[in-house]
């Protein structure tokens, strides 16, 4: 049992650090916490993010685990993690490539043909082209396979109609991965097909969604007779669900429990406000609560270390990773709620009017998204109970029924 790098890992870390030292500036203690920086849509930020991705690609530090022929360095998963740890220590622009490099790229590398890989992967890796994901629909969230957008074959093309939702960054993306229904007469998982769509195609309309925190990270995307060449189909017709699963596995691996603020910030707050005329940090109830948060957050982190160890030993982590998001998002919400309560009447304020610049209020409004995106708490508990613990699946009201016959609302 050893938290230290193996000699190979240490060498790799030193190499990464050397490159970063030469190309970026270290973060400073008084930099704003990374988790409250959510703005990612201004042209300046996009340009900065692209420039940094290009620099990494040129230096051989983008998409480390991908094959060298596409610009990667065929690195191991643990090397990729080490890179991430090191990069996080530096001031870098917000990353707008997470979906492309974390989900789209790996899916194409797994299921795409050689032409598709050659066409898309290098520019994705270098940041020249930006990617998004088009899976969820207004009526297909947790029940993703219940999606209703359609694709109809027409000559060498497919014609797509329907609506997608929760598409991060759609307004500035070049390509999107898309799952649509190509056959409503078979069971719901059997009638799906997976495409790559050019986001600049005629008939693609993008409308930003305002979140409860007034952020606009997500979009609705409407498809009206959008034509996609059959050459942009990934895998076989009707095999879309299997391909989507690859994407989702990569998504869950990349969503952590972040965004919740640190116990350190909470301790700072508890030192700065009073309860009963004394600093809150001396209040026994406050201490018990903070200790509970710390214990759980550290538990999530140590569980992550167990996963890293498995990676380091060359194993593939499984659905156990759901724990981090399930526990982490809930603790984050409780912690923000508690921090607001600590502020007393001033907890009713926001932004600059509130303590610590309103960071806790901001988190409290952002965190519900964490508990929903990439699998709600309920979906994660289903995954854990069925795929980790092997418990029997839910009885399915929609099993073995043609998609068009599945109930979608109360009987009228």
């Amino acid at each position, binding site marked *: 049992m050893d938290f230290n790098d193996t000699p190979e890992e240490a060498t790799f870390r030193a190499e990464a650090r050397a490159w970063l030292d030469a190309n970026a500036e270290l973060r400073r203690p008084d930099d704003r916490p990374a988790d409250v920086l959510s703005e990612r849509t201004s042209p300046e930020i996009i340009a900065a993010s692209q420039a940094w991705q290009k620099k990494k690609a040129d230096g051989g530090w983008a998409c480390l685990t991908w094959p060298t022929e596409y610009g990667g360095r065929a690195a191991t998963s643990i090397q990729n993690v080490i890179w991430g740890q090191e990069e996080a220590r530096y001031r870098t622009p917000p990353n707008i490539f997470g979906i492309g490099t974390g989900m789209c790229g790996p899916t194409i590398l797994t299921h795409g043909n050689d032409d598709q890989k050659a066409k898309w992967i290098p520019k994705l890796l270098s940041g020249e082209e930006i990617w998004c994901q088009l899976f*969820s629909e*207004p009526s297909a*969230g*947790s*029940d993703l396979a*219940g999606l209703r957008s359609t694709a109809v074959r027409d000559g060498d093309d497919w014609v797509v109609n329907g609506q997608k*939702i*929760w598409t991060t960054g759609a307004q500035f993306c070049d390509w999107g991965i898309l799952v649509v229904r190509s056959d409503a007469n078979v069971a719901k998982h059997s009638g799906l097909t997976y495409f790559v769509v050019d986001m600049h195609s005629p008939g693609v309309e993008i409308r930003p*969604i*305002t*979140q*409860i925190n*007034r952020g606009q990270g997500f979009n609705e995307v409407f498809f009206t007779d959008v034509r996609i060449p059959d050459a942009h189909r990934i895998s076989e017709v009707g095999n879309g669900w299997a391909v989507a699963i690859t994407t989702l596995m990569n998504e869950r691996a990349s969503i952590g429990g972040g965004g919740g603020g640190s116990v350190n910030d909470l301790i700072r707050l508890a030192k*700065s*406000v*009073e*309860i*009963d*005329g*004394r600093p*809150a940090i001396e209040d026994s109830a406050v201490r018990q609560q903070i200790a509970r948060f710390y214990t759980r957050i550290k538990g999530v982190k140590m569980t992550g270390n167990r996963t890293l160890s498995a990676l380091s030993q060359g194993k593939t982590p499984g659905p156990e990773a759901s724990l981090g998001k399930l526990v982490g998002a809930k603790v984050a*919400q409780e912690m923000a*709620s508690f921090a*607001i*309560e*600590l*502020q*007393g*009447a*001033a*907890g*009713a*304020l*926001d*932004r*600059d*009017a*509130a*303590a610590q610049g*309103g960071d806790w*209020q901001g988190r409290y*409004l952002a965190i*519900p*998204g964490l*508990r*929903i*995106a990439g699998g*709600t708490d*309920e979906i994660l*508990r289903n995954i854990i109970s069925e795929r980790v613990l092997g418990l029997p699946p*839910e009885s*399915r*009201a*929609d099993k073995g*029924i043609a998609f068009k016959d*599945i*109930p*979608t*609302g*109360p009987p009228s």
Partner: protein
Amino acid sequence: MNFDFSDDQKLLQKTARDYLAEHSPLTVCREVLETDQPYAVELWKGAAEMGWQGAVIPEEFGGAGFGHLELAMIAEEVGRALAPIPFSSSVYFATEAILKAGSDAQKKKYLPALASGEAIGTFALAEKPGQSDVENVEARVSGGKLCGTKVPVPDGDVATFAVVAAQGDGGLSLYLVDLDTEGVSRESITSFDPSRSMARVEFSDASAELLGKPGEGAALVSHVLDRAAVLMAFEQLGAAQACFDDTIAFTQGRYAFGRPVASFQAIKHRLADMWCELELARSNAYYGAWALSNEEDELTVAACIARIQASEAFDDLAVEMVQMHGGVGYTWEYDCHLFYRRAKLLAAVLGTPAVWKHKLIDRIADAGED
């Protein structure tokens, strides 16, 4: 044993509910939230015409002369509608303070204007973040002039006067201060729930008139907070009930995997637990209303448990409302965040549950009450 509201009281509630359904659908709350408007002026006037602001003000001072049970019913409806008006500040706080401690002259000056809605009162206690408001009062009155800063003052940007806690010659005391007067400067500050406004109010030698006796401040603050806590519990209860009803309706109408979301046992059981929290809040609020309307010695204990359960239940239910709505619950377009914000605001404005828990133990630890 008749631990329930009377038919007349329920009728009054029904009238209030109908009025608000027509004049304060959630779009009214949203309009205040999304614009610079600090509150819904027309609604405020309409409420005054219904006699709500003056519900417990005696008829001799221009009020409706109802009792607190009637006001509790109105508060529940104000809560249900998330009505964006300075009702709590003016009615639960300022009016109660003057009713309790005001001289006859003060009552004559303020109560009729409060009843008609012409005056908006508020209560200015907090000065800095934390749960030690009474301990932290540094505002000071000397020679009838008030100096100091109060923040946040709920509705302090629109109130015509404030009941201010400040240090005076005899120790902590309450003062009446007109806010449109020399020596007062105020600014709106960002509220966590912008459908309810918050202000920073600075006093530099502003004229302040003693309310109650010198040095009686701590006792009066406690007295006013107890009363406000019960009324606020009804407001929270109404809002929590609306939040729950909407969640039930949504999960029944929303289908996933070929069946209503509300048919999944994990969701059903959580809804059952939420219902329990709500019913406990209702029961404790009723207890508070009984104690308040009968001026019972148990008022403080009743106010504590009403406040604690109402705050926690509304907070819980609002969190679950967002979660159970899934993705759409996280959009500005859906109303979930109106409840999510309001729950935190109402839990903050008159002492958090933690503060009331301490007060409760102070009361029961020696009483041998069970």
